[in-house]
């Protein structure tokens, strides 16, 4: 039961939604997979909810000029099962298929997930590996940020009051790109204890591009550039992968909770990074 009263608006289009949010006091309701439980537990008590589920503009997956644009209100299931994403930029679809359970994937949205910025959410690892961009709108205008700039800290994004995520932009993959997302799942919550997303390209027997995104390990998801630098230009052998994955937790202040200590997370980060790289390399040609 939700214990407190609140205003509820369900605007039919984006302009109406942005006007309602312009005051800065209303809270956006996307899929409600994080916000509603918090309200039921009385941990969150917003005065006004603006439900974006009727804003049709925010629900689409389309290809445009070498990129795929995913509307903020697209559900995890729609991403997971999108033929366009599966064919042209599969990493995000793989990440979506790893989220929570079927009920959550049917309701939860990519915009809601990244705006909540849970440090163990699945998308950020893949979005970092994809060097995704986030298009943000408000009543005052719009701006586009790289995912690194968007994810400021644990549960903190670059969104200002009144702003919402409009769409997420990922590249159409070049032919031969190999991707993988490997997640150590905490069974009760479905969140990642650690999750590693890898994206690689090979050329002339060498690793010509490598991107690694990590979630769950630190306060916010991050790109493991140390790993990338060690693997780039090598032949991508098992030994190269092990050597590169070994540095993933270097200099990282690792999270600790009931389920996994910081030391255990650091170790698992190496193991899952190596698995993600190995699988991505095996899929690259």
């Amino acid at each position, binding site marked *: 039961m939700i214990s407190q009263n609140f205003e509820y608006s369900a605007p039919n289009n984006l302009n109406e939604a942005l006007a309602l949010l312009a005051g800065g006091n209303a*809270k956006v309701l996307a899929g409600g997979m*994080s*916000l509603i*439980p*918090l309200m039921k*537990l*009385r*941990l*969150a*008590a*917003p005065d006004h909810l603006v439900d974006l589920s009727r804003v049709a503009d925010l629900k689409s997956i389309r290809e445009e000029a070498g990129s795929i644009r995913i509307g903020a209100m697209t559900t995890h299931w729609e991403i997971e099962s999108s033929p366009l994403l599966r064919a042209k930029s599969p990493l995000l679809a793989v990440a979506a298929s790893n989220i929570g359970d079927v009920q959550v994937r049917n309701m939860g949205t990519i915009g809601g997930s990244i705006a*909540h*910025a*849970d*440090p*163990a959410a699945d998308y950020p690892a893949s979005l970092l590996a994809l060097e995704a961009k986030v298009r943000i709108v408000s009543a005052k205008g719009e701006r586009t940020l790289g995912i690194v700039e968007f994810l400021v*800290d*644990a*549960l*903190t994004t670059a969104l200002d009051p009144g702003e919402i995520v409009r769409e997420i932009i990922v590249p159409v993959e070049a032919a031969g790109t190999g991707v993988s997302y490997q997640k150590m799942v*905490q069974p009760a*919550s479905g*969140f990642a204890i650690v999750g590693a997303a890898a994206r690689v390209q090979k050329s002339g027997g060498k690793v010509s591009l490598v991107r690694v995104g990590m979630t769950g390990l630190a*306060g916010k998801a991050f790109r493991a550039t140390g790993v990338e630098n060690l693997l780039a230009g090598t032949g991508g052998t098992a030994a190269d992968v092990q050597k590169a994955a070994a540095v993933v937790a270097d200099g990282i*202040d690792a*999270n*600790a*909770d*009931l*389920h996994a200590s910081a030391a255990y997370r650091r170790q698992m980060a190496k193991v899952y990074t190596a698995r993600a790289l190995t699988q991505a390399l095996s899929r690259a040609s």
Partner: protein
Amino acid sequence: MKIGGSYTLPVARERAYEVLQDPEVLARCMPGTDHLAKIGPDEYEMKMKMVISAVQGLFAGKVRIADQKPPEQFRLLVEGSGKVGFLKGDGLLTLVSSEASTEVRYEGEVQVGGVIAGVGQRLLDTTAKLVIRKFFEKLTEFVGEASQPAAG
């Protein structure tokens, strides 16, 4: 839950020790503090409104400073409670001089209970680190401003 870490403030040790115990400075730098008053020697009462993502909680509590060894060490005892849960912490702060700056090392034990601990266990450690980091960032900003020569 154990917490620990260090942060470097760009001021001399004596100054760092002073600002870390100045209630006005603490009230300005501690995220969400909207009331902090002295209620006894080295003892303060405070009210905080924490807003982290969609979660918001009002906490009322006390802060006590003990075992003072200026300018190198003191102990901070914190107790607070609100609708969403309670918090009890005991931390030792050690200040180490290095040239023109001071490294503040902290270690301690925090206990969190109530609804917030029951459902948010997974995020407690991350959130504690986030709040501490924000505090030191604001404190760094504050000491930076305070050391600027007055304009005009």
